[in-house]
């Protein structure tokens, strides 16, 4: 890049790259190996150098139309073909189609007698001849360091190697040179000083009896690249590197809501469910119904006609189906309709990397809308590795917009156990299931710890696993705290009694009042009757008085008349 003297970074021509076709490796190298330049692939014995180099050629020939030359200094071409046949590479077919040449360079130190000066021109002749035969764009030299064991004159050898790498560059072929890992340096014979454009280091570590292969790009001249150690796998489908964040946290996100499968839980979440593509952690103690929640979630996914992939690490599919039938879920019909797929395996079956690849492959094949992993706590191993495994699994799901539902077994009743803390930051939603021990019983209580991008209930809710589904009991939060189970029912009964007593007292008071009203009204009537009697008496007396007055007047008139007549 430096020689090209680009005027500015913006119009700097991008380094041309030769894609390896190895899943993940092209991501971390941002496109592949430097085209037309040699790349050193070094690592200790058995870490997959030859296989990766061969994959580079086979993919080049099959997918990118680049013919290749494999110059082997160790294995014979028949052995090479047989070794990679297990990966499904048809070496003989490629050779017959003139897309690949394998040249085995036999070095037998015991047969070599040196007398005087020599050089390695035949190596160039052989390479040039092989390249011309198929018009090769890619060359692998595996492992050129074997020359050092056959020839003691290192001065000649090093001069010739320098010439060889220069020659490869001049021919413009993309070369991969493998090298055995040495003490304190990348390769045993320090050939990294000749091959300096791109160096990839492979490593094979055993931890707790589980082997993990790792890959690191030590340098990549003229290009940025992922700098971490990335685990990679070699299995029946070839080599795949697992870049921890191949998408670089740029997932497309969705505002769609996916119901949880539990109506009452939906109500606790501000938008009535999870966002599609979010990662959900359901942590809980033993027997708090984690699998039941998972099954309801899976059921809800399938009921909507979407596919769900269920990774079970503790139960067999049949056992899950049987157990969930008692919880009122018929998972079998979803399995039969092809919407639900179970993948059961003991966590100890393989290492974390193998599990991850298997899941990755299954997800890629089944294309589910949701994934359930029950439980993630079944993974045993170094915490940081579990963490990175889950991180990558969550990323795989996020990348594809898959809603991922993880359950985790908490060990102590403290909900923030080590395992949960480790993964909770990866999760968008965290629901905790726990149980409350009181009044001689254990009651299940759930609460929503966090939901990214959504308001949610802050309540601790008791829930009941019934045959009609998971029901959340109405919360009782009062002076007595959160009451659950029998205590909650007792408290409710007490409250009912108190209410009854209160209403009875009111009725009694009303009746009393009625009685008093009646008696007062009776008194009023009596008084009124007395008054009326008095009034009529008075009237009668008045009338009598008036009558008497008239009689008196009449008498007086009569007496006057009589007196007048006599007078």
């Amino acid at each position, binding site marked *: 890049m430096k020689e090209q003297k680009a005027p500015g970074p913006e119009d700097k021509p991008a380094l041309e790259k030769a894609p390896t076709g190895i899943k993940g490796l092209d991501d971390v190298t941002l496109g592949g190996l430097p085209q037309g330049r040699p790349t050193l692939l070094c690592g200790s014995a058995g870490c997959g150098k030859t296989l990766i180099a061969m994959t580079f050629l086979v993919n080049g020939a099959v997918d990118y139309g680049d013919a290749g030359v494999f110059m082997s200094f160790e294995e014979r071409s028949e052995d090479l073909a047989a070794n990679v046949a297990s990966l499904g590479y048809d070496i003989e077919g490629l050779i017959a189609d003139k897309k690949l040449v394998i040249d085995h360079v036999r070095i037998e130190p015991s047969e070599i007698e040196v007398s*005087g000066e020599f050089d390695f*021109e035949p190596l160039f*002749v052989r390479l040039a001849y092989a390249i011309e035969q198929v018009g090769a764009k890619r060359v692998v030299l595996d492992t050129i360091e074997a020359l050092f064991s056959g020839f003691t004159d290192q001065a000649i050898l090093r001069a010739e190697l320098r010439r060889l790498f220069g020659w490869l560059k001049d021919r413009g072929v993309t070369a991969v040179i493998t090298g055995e890992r040495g003490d304190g340096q990348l390769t045993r014979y320090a050939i990294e000083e000749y091959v300096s454009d791109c160096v990839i280091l492979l490593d094979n570590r055993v931890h707790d009896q589980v082997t993990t292969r790792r890959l690191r790009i030590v340098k990549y001249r003229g290009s940025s690249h992922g700098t971490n150690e990335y685990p990679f796998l070699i299995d029946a489908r070839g080599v795949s590197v697992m870049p921890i964040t191949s998408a670089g946290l740029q997932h497309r996100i969705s505002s769609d809501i996916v119901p949880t499968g539990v109506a009452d839980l939906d109500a606790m979440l501000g938008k009535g469910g999870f966002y599609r593509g979010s990662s959900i952690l359901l942590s809980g103690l033993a027997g708090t119904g984690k699998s039941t929640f998972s099954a309801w979630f899976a059921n809800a996914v399938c009921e909507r006609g979407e596919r769900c992939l269920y990774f079970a690490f503790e139960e067999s599919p049949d056992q899950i189906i049987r157990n969930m039938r008692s919880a009122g879920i018929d998972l079998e019909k979803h399995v039969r309709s092809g919407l639900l797929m179970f993948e059961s395996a003991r966590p100890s079956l393989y290492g974390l990397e193998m599990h991850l690849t298997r899941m990755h492959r299954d997800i890629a094949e089944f294309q589910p809308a949701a994934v359930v992993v029950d439980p993630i706590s079944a993974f045993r191993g170094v915490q940081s590795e579990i963490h990175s495994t889950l991180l990558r699994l969550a990323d795989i799901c996020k990348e594809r917009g898959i809603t991922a539902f993880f359950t985790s077994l908490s060990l102590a009743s403290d909900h923030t156990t080590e395992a949960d803390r480790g993964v909770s930051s990866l999760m968008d939603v965290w629901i905790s299931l726990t149980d409350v021990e009181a009044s001689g019983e254990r009651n299940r209580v759930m609460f929503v710890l966090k939901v990214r991008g959504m308001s949610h209930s802050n309540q601790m809710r008791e829930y009941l696993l019934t045959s009609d589904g998971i029901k959340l009991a109405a919360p009782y939060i009062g002076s007595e705290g959160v009451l659950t189970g029998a205590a909650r029912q007792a408290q409710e009964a007490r409250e009912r009694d108190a209410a009854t007593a209160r209403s009875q007292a009111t009725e009694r008071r009303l009746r009393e009042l009625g009685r008093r009203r009646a008696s007062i009204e009776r008194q009023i009537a009596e008084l009124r009757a007395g008054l009326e009697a008095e009034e009529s008496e008075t009237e009668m007396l008045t009338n009598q008085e008036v009558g008497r007055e008239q009689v008196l007047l009449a008498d007086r008139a009569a007496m006057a008349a009589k007196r007048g007549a006599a007078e």
Partner: protein
Amino acid sequence: MSDKHQATFDPAKPGYYNLRLYVAGQTPKSVAAISNLKSICEEHLAGMYTIEVIDLLVKPQLAAGDQILAVPTLVRRLPPPIKRIIGNLSNTERVLVGLDIQSGEPPAS
């Protein structure tokens, strides 16, 4: 470009040497190797040898076919086993050891 120095002896006879010298172009090293080989053979194997010089630039396919890695390479094809000596053959002692020829011993009758 292969020139043969045919011996008058019967090739099937024991003690007959079939030698092949691989070179890549007319470099000083290959010229030296050819002349060194000729003088050694004349001295120690007079009349009992064939030398075939093969230029890999002319027949590149033979480089892979005969497993040639360095030049000059001298291959003793007969008598068996096959032996290889690389270098310009300037060290006569080593050439004789490599070809399994006892030095000092006069050539067989």
